[in-house]
């Protein structure tokens, strides 16, 4: 049986991990490669690196980071941020990333997903969706530009469109739950998961091991992504995975 995946996410800016990371015994808590190694050791099933560099040099540095991670780790990883054209995908995938994640660029030009899928296969194409509940319409709206811009898209419609264009996976972030530590957005995750036939990674809101259990049991997410809960050592990957196993979830 396929196991549920737990995926730590690292924000990388100009080649350095940003947001405080509280691990004991690290030589350099800002080094993405060293952190990737720690998460690998703790049982991460996959990693996501989000490049939030603002400069061209920062993006180039990211390619070096990708190359180093690919050389040292034997688990899959995804790179997102700054993927706007086929050339951007080529750079990070050739450097050893397994998947690319795109968000705003895919909404602006959905053909980008198709171009990437035709060239590299759908399995490399992750479409990240930032969604927020809208009371008036009783549905979730898709936002781009880091959650700053509302789009015309309904989240379920957009997920279906992304799948049709060749997305191999959806990385779904609930803007309502993000940062709350009150748990993943079960209804959103369920709505998207029921609509598409590709895997869905739930993101936003993880605060405890129970939250992971809920998103797997109640929303049938295929994977769950979290950042601060792991970075700040509020719990550990090992602990979360052990807890899920005890509660009957298929975990590696």
């Amino acid at each position, binding site marked *: 049986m396929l196991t549920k995946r737990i995926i730590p996410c690292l924000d990388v800016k100009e080649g350095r991990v940003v947001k405080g990371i509280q691990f004991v015994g690290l030589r350099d808590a800002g080094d993405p490669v060293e952190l990737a190694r720690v998460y690998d050791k703790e049982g991460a099933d996959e990693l996501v690196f989000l490049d939030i560099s603002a400069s061209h040099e920062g993006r180039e540095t990211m390619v070096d980071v990708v190359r180093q991670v690919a050389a040292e780790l*034997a688990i*899959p990883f995804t790179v997102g941020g700054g993927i706007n054209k086929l050339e951007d995908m080529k750079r990070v995938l050739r450097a050893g990333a397994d998947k690319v994640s795109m968000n705003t660029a895919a909404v602006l030009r959905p053909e980008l997903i198709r171009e990437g899928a035709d060239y590299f296969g759908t399995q490399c194409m992750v479409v990240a969706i930032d969604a927020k509940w809208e009371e008036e319409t009783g549905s979730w709206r898709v936002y781009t530009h880091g959650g700053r811009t509302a789009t015309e898209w309904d989240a379920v419609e957009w997920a279906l469109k992304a799948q049709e264009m060749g997305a191999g996976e959806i990385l779904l972030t609930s803007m309502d739950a993000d940062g709350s530590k009150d748990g993943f957005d079960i209804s959103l995750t369920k709505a998207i998961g029921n609509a598409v036939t590709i895997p869905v990674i739930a993101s936003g809101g993880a605060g405890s091991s129970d939250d992971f259990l809920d998103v797997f049991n109640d929303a049938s997410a295929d994977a769950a992504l979290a950042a601060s809960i792991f970075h700040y050592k509020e719990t550990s990957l090992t602990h979360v995975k052990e807890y899920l196993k005890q509660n009957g979830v298929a975990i590696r």
Partner: protein
Amino acid sequence: MIGIIDYGMGNLYSVSKALERLGYDYFVSEEEEELSKATGLLLPGVGSFRDAMAILNETGLKAFIDKEVARGKPLLGICLGMQLLFEESNENGFAEGFSFLPGKVKKFPGQDSSGTSYKVPHMGWNKLDIKKPDSFLMNDVGNEHVYFVHSYYVDTEDRDVLIASADYAEEVPAVVGKGNVFGTQFHPEKSSHAGLAILRNYAQYVERNDA
């Protein structure tokens, strides 16, 4: 020394680095003359079956690999590289494979025999069910999880080629082999301990074969 066949379909960096970390010599090449010096071959592959076979045919690498395998040289196919070892596929239209191993490549139907739908691609960590624990490839490999990512799988009636499988609605051939031809459906270089053990086992087999 392992020769990694570079035909433009696939990520050679991670698998090269994995061999390097394990301490085995390798080189990457698209030249027959150079590849003929390798004592074992590795055929990677990401993308579609038909495109891959078209390139291998056009470049003459198909005929070269046929010849080398017939001479007894070990060959390991990874992911799409494993599927190419079988008879045929209908991914993006019909195409013939190498036919080293009996079986056809099919798309996951997305619905099991009871009508329940499941996700395609088969993506994530799935447990190996070892059929041939005595195979050298399974040395130091338990019923561990390995990382799969594929929408097509091999359907074979020849139980003899199945070294390990995984369960995903269908019985998915995960490690296959016969004679000097082997393959893994998953990416060993992305499959943590079990994956690296399989790569090491293959590299050791190539070395022994060389001696």
